[in-house]
């Protein structure tokens, strides 16, 4: 009953070119059937994400730990609400991040849970920068 070989093969890493994504924009790509949000964050969004008192968060994690150093403007998260798996909407909610329309969870500009029933932050998928404008997810 576990995934068959073709499903596993189709889940191989993918490369995404970031050059067309302007500051303040985000794109949604699918990897392993899951939507991955790639946000080109503005200075304001980064500052907001870093100004938070980490200890006060429901799932404490620093913004630095959620992005790759040297590429702070890029946030890459799996866009699946950690509550019950709906897809949050980007650029909505009170925290300049994501808002889940199903049960009202709100995530900040670092994809961390700030309000609502979700127990954890939006997970960061495994990825690395192949070049300055290209990442490999997986």
């Amino acid at each position, binding site marked *: 009953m576990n995934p068959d070989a073709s499903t596993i093969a189709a889940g191989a890493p993918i490369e995404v070119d970031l050059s067309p994504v302007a500051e303040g924009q985000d794109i949604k790509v699918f990897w392993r*059937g899951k*939507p991955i949000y790639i946000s080109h964050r503005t200075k304001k969004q980064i500052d907001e994400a870093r100004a938070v008192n980490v200890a006060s968060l429901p799932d404490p994690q620093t913004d630095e730990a959620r992005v790759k150093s040297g590429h702070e403007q890029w946030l890459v998260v799996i866009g699946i609400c950690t509550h*019950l798996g*709906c897809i949050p909407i980007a650029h909505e909610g009170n925290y300049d991040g994501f808002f889940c329309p199903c049960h009202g969870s709100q995530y900040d500009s670092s994809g961390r849970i700030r309000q609502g029933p*979700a127990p954890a932050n939006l997970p960061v998928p495994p990825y690395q920068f192949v070049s300055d404008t290209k990442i490999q997810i997986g």
Partner: protein
Amino acid sequence: MSGPSDYQPSNPALQWLERRLPILGLVHSSFVVYPTPRNLNYWWTFGAILSFMLGMQILTGVILAMHYTPHADLAFKSVELLVRDVNYGWLLRNMHACGASMFFFAVYVHMLRGLYYGSYKEPREVLWILGVIIYLLMMATGFMGYVLPWGQMSFWGATVITNLFSAIPYVGESIVTLLWGGYSVGNPTLNRFFSLHYLLPFLIAGVVVLHVWALHVAGQNNPDGVEPKTEKDTVPFTPHATIKDGFGVACFLLLYAWFIFYMPNYLGDADNYIPANPGVTPPHIVPEWYYLPFYAILRSIPNKLAGVIGMFSAIIILCFLPWLDAAKTKSSKYRPLAKQFFWIFVAVCILLGYLGAQPPEGIYVIAGRVLTVCYFAYFLIVLPLLSRIETPRPVPNSISEAILAKSGKAVASVAVMLVAAGALFLGSLQDARASEGSDTPPGNKWSFSGPFGKYDRGALQRGLKVYKEVCSSCHGLSYIAFRNLAEAGGPGYSVAQAAAFASDYKVKDGPNDAGDMFERPGRPADYFPSPFPNEQAARAANGGAAPPDLSLITKARSYKRGFPMFIVDFFSQYQEQGPDYVSAVLQGFEEKVPEGVTIPEGSYYNKYFPGHAIKMPKPLSDGQVTYDDGSPTTVAQYSKDVTTFLMWTAEPHMEARKRLGFQVFIFLIIFALLMYFTKKKVWADSH
């Protein structure tokens, strides 16, 4: 099933069989001479109703499976095509979909009856627990069946429910992967759900056999909760119980047929007429009505794992009921306090069901928590406590004595309760249908509404013209073939007219001998060609918002009716939320944007569109389409015509449905009356 039988058939061939396999004796002892308490009321007919419904679901399900394709790309279309093209496919689908709801409705009545009359008490504990197992299997079957049409609610319901298992520590994620057969809900998930949905009903049938076996060993409970002592306390199963069950089933069929023929989509969700899309979440994910109380419990508990545990324990706790309630008196008829708490419990369940359909905010969350506590308190505090402090009224010595003392009043209350409870509970789902922050579309007078509604042929023909000249430049109509235009119940064109209409279109065909695709004139068997080759192209050409296919639009759109309108709708058969919404949106464009509303660049203000910012520019203006029949060429008339046409495309067999429904109702009413008078006659000496 209750011991050896002394049944001897008179026919020699049957005697020969009986000596080798005493199956006739088994049937005879279990369903003919089996002694059944004389004082059973109509609540006891729900056992027979449930057996009937199980048979019905299996029968319709097997036939549906012959026409269904369990593939993520084809499932939605195959369901639509089976409704449109298979002989009586619409009837099969309605029977199966409404049948699931009716099955659950009956099982809830059956369970509450057991709860009220103490049917779980000694010596019927195993019988009760088998019942809880059947209920759990039913829930799993119902859930997987709801996924199969692969609409938006199917897909997202599957996502939310399978994600529940991820709350289990350590092994949760692997269980979820196992359920999905991939990294998310997808084609492998659909395939295994189809397989299991076909399997589980037969498991249910197996456990039902055990359930009936246990019943026939322990004997039936009865409204007075005293065991039969002498022969005077019982009557033979046939004809007494058989005919009474027959009457019960006939009455139940009336309710069932009301849904099948007149309100097939009342219990469903409009979003499920939108094909599954893993990239878009519907604004409200709501399970089918029969899961709503448990869904409300899940959402009331703020911790994810605790919520899942709470939801499952709400069902599992029923298994322990025989030991939680230690009172010696079985029937709540003789337990004044237990009776009151029972009805409070019923109210709690109905309110939880209502809350399960509401958005989880503000007062709803608090009310949900209070009611969740009440739900568990009934089992864990009230029942154990009552068995210690309550003084029951004296119980009659025997069933015969109870019958002498009784005054007949149950029958009328059964009918009233059935309709009232049903309407209240079943309808709560409707509330969740979303279109917040927009005005309610005005109601219209539609030719196709009501039990005798028919499509206005002129409106269908004019609507087709409006579609062809205006809508078709952006919107597809991909489930409609040109041949449909000549079918009965449609716009009323002849076959030749439909063929001529088709030949105006260029249809892509191929590959030919050289391996190239080519274009040829349309034939009646072709479907309306879509304006865009795929969704991405449609999106790119329309500023990011793909124009939806219109084949099902009038069933895929709805708006919130709210309490108490959804109860009124049950009786008035109001089913036209979709058409009202579509026609309102077509007329809802306004040049002047009201204050406080900002419309983004490239969008237009629409009074009735959720959020008010619609990407579609005002499509219709007065005089745009010429009519040959002298009808006014106004936006209002265009909207009405094209909406009527789109209602037909969404439901081409509606006229056949309503016509057959009327015949079925006449038949059922006569049948129920005959059953009733036969029952009176059979029982004449037994009361």
